């Protein structure tokens, strides 16, 4: 009985080098956060994961402590090539951008106070907010196959959004509250599916 989330992705990384280079390339495109690029490259271009798999992995990467995209690259690398793959993924995500950041620090250490530099950061910030919002909107489609059903999913999403975005409650509390509700209800629904299958 394969779970419905295991619709396999059409492709996979060919080697650890492929993994390292792919992650390097997408990290170097990721200004103001890498998530939007990760989603586009891994799901839409390379097709290493389905949209559903991406949502599931992203959920885990975000819940675990540590930088989210680093967690994500650990998980993806580890799945294909074990510990060596995890290290290749993280190294790809960090090595080249680290060099770029250090070069910027050496060249522009004092420039960051200048008005044009502040303005550029402001403009890039506005764009990266839009990138994150677009990823969120694209991923909503992945909820269609969720065992909780679309109405419950939307209810949970609205609750979480209001808690974090409007009420400004601490993230940990919102995750604990809506998370327990969501996981509990998903468990009940999945258990029902299993019983229904066994009776059929």
């Amino acid at each position, binding site marked *: 009985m394969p779970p419905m989330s295991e619709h396999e992705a059409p492709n996979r990384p060919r080697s650890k080098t492929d993994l390292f280079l792919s992650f390097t390339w997408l990290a170097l495109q990721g200004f103001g956060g890498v998530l939007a690029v990760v989603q586009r490259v891994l799901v839409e271009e390379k097709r290493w994961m389905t949209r559903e798999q991406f949502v599931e992995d992203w959920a*885990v990467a975000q819940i675990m*402590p540590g930088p989210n995209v680093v967690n994500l690259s650990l998980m993806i690398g580890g799945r294909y090539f074990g510990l060596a793959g995890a290290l290749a993924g993280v190294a790809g995500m960090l090595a080249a951008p680290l060099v*770029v950041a250090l070069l910027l620090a050496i060249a522009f*250490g004092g420039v960051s106070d200048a008005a044009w530099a502040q303005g550029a950061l402001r403009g890039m910030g506005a764009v990266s907010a839009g990138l994150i*919002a677009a990823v969120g*909107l694209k991923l909503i489609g992945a909820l269609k196959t969720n065992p909780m059903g679309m109405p419950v999913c939307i209810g949970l999403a609205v609750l979480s959004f209001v808690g974090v975005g409007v009420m400004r409650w601490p993230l940990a509390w919102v995750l604990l509250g809506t998370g327990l509700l969501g996981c509990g209800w998903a468990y009940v629904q*999945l258990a029902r599916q299993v019983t229904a299958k066994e009776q059929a």
Partner: protein
Amino acid sequence: MNPVLTLTAADWLGMFQHFASLSLLAVGGAITTAPDMHRYLVDETRWLSDSQFTSSIALAQAAPGPNILFVALMGWNVGLNAAASLGGGWHSAALGAWGVLVAMLGIMLPSSILTYTATRWAHQHRERLAIRAFKSGMAPIVIALLLATAWLLTVSHNQPARDWPIYALTLLTTLIVWRTKVHMLWLIGIGALLGALGWV
């Protein structure tokens, strides 16, 4: 003025421990622990000047790659300050690199080990009802968190009369990325340009 430091092995160990202790607390991104880093590095030990601290965060945001690299830049600057007492020169590069290593290992090792082991275990038991319920139950919540992040970034600009171009830029980016395949680097570049010219 940047501090001129003489750091002992115990000091470096202290910095490693501080970052390592924050690593497991960084749920929802390492940037949430930045206030505690400021308390330690600027207020208590005085290893970094205020402007070095702020520019580390600003530069990491402007550079491509995961935002966690702001920790690397803080380590780099602590190394530079420590090298200043030795006359700078090649000491700067060596101690700067050493600072990057100490800071990044500290912030990444504990959370990465935890994430790697936990997700390996979860992947081996992915057919279990509880694991499937966790992934399904969290999916709508993490999607809502993405939208909330974008929302919070946008409303942090809170003067509509002045900030409406920022709102418009974010909204436009969201629609373009959601509905088209336009390369994200173009959008980031346009955002930076509009900002540098003072139009947003």
